[in-house]
């Protein structure tokens, strides 16, 4: 199942190639971004086709056996998420050319854009709790920077507000990971699901669930923690608001 790590490795590599290309020849940056996101779309379609035959395919990073190494799990839900993300990324990069013509430093935009894509792809396919945190932070940090992309007063203020809210969420998630690791001694999501059956219903269990819910509701902008959303969306460049 070689296509699974490609889903996040390809945008990650592209993100670091783009600054070099931006130095050589500026219009190349947009072409490369669009081509790479189209390739991602093709890979995602292939992944959907694979899940029709094999419902659950697992890729072991570095060929370590599952409880020890990091795994990438690809089932029908992550196939759906990956397909949605790749469609949005492809169309966004297609239409971002006109919008971005009034900004300088476009290659910076595309670098952050590809990093954010890599983070979101990683969240959808990872099978490891800490790896999920890392990808969450990759996506989050690049989106904070993208909200502040046009450096006017409003955009910086919206970015700071989003950063404060988002980081409280992210660090609460890290705290929940630490508590889960203390209880189950594993980070593999499937293993955790088995181990959690033992402590189900205890106060500790509900505390972890509450922390996770708090962290993800900040990230998603659910109602008590939504105050960053109405400022961040208009401040961000329009192609990013769609993500």
């Amino acid at each position: 199942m070689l296509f699974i790590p490609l889903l996040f490795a390809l945008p990650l590599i592209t993100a670091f190639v783009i600054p070099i290309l931006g130095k050589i020849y500026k219009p190349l940056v947009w072409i490369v971004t669009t081509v790479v996101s189209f390739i991602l779309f093709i890979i995602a379609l292939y992944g959907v086709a694979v899940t029709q035959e094999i419902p659950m395919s697992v890729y072991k990073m570095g060929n370590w056996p599952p409880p020890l190494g990091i795994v990438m799990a690809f089932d029908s839900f992550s196939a759906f998420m990956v397909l949605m993300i790749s469609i949005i990324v492809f169309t966004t990069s297609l239409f971002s050319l006109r919008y971005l013509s009034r900004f300088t430093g476009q290659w910076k935009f595309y670098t952050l854009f590809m990093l954010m894509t890599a983070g979101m792809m990683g969240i959808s396919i990872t099978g490891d709790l800490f790896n999920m945190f890392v990808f969450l932070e990759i996506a989050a940090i690049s989106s904070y920077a993208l909200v502040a992309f046009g450096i006017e007063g409003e955009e910086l203020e919206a970015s700071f507000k989003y950063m404060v809210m988002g980081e409280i969420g992210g660090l609460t998630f890290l705290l929940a990971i630490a508590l889960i690791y203390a209880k189950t001694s594993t980070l593999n999501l499937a293993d955790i699901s088995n181990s959690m059956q033992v402590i189900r219903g205890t106060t500790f269990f509900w505390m972890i669930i509450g922390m996770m819910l708090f962290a993800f509701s900040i990230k998603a902008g659910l109602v008590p923690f939504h105050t960053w959303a109405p400022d961040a969306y208009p401040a961000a460049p329009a192609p990013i608001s769609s993500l």
Partner: protein
Amino acid sequence: MIVFVSCIILFLIGLYAIVTKRNLIKIAIGFAFIEYAVNLLFALIGFKRGALAPIITQIDKPHNFVDPIPQALVLTAIVIALGTTALMLTVILRIYNRYKTFDIAEIRKLKG
């Protein structure tokens, strides 16, 4: 037990700074507090009293090691925290150049 509780207290001190302080730099310091609290808690989870550093020197001998995984995770978390803090300070500096103040009560062009 008392060390874990003091980690949580450190976390709450940071959260208090973020929620109540009006100076942008103090908010950034509050984040540093929270990051240290979480990293310290993570490192303490893998700690065992009287255990060795997790380096295998003799293969066939049973070892009493501290858990190496939280240490590796904390290293990664420190790097992420560094990135976030750097970005946050950059944004604070840019805000200062625009508004000529660090006070969040005076920086309110937005409605939300």
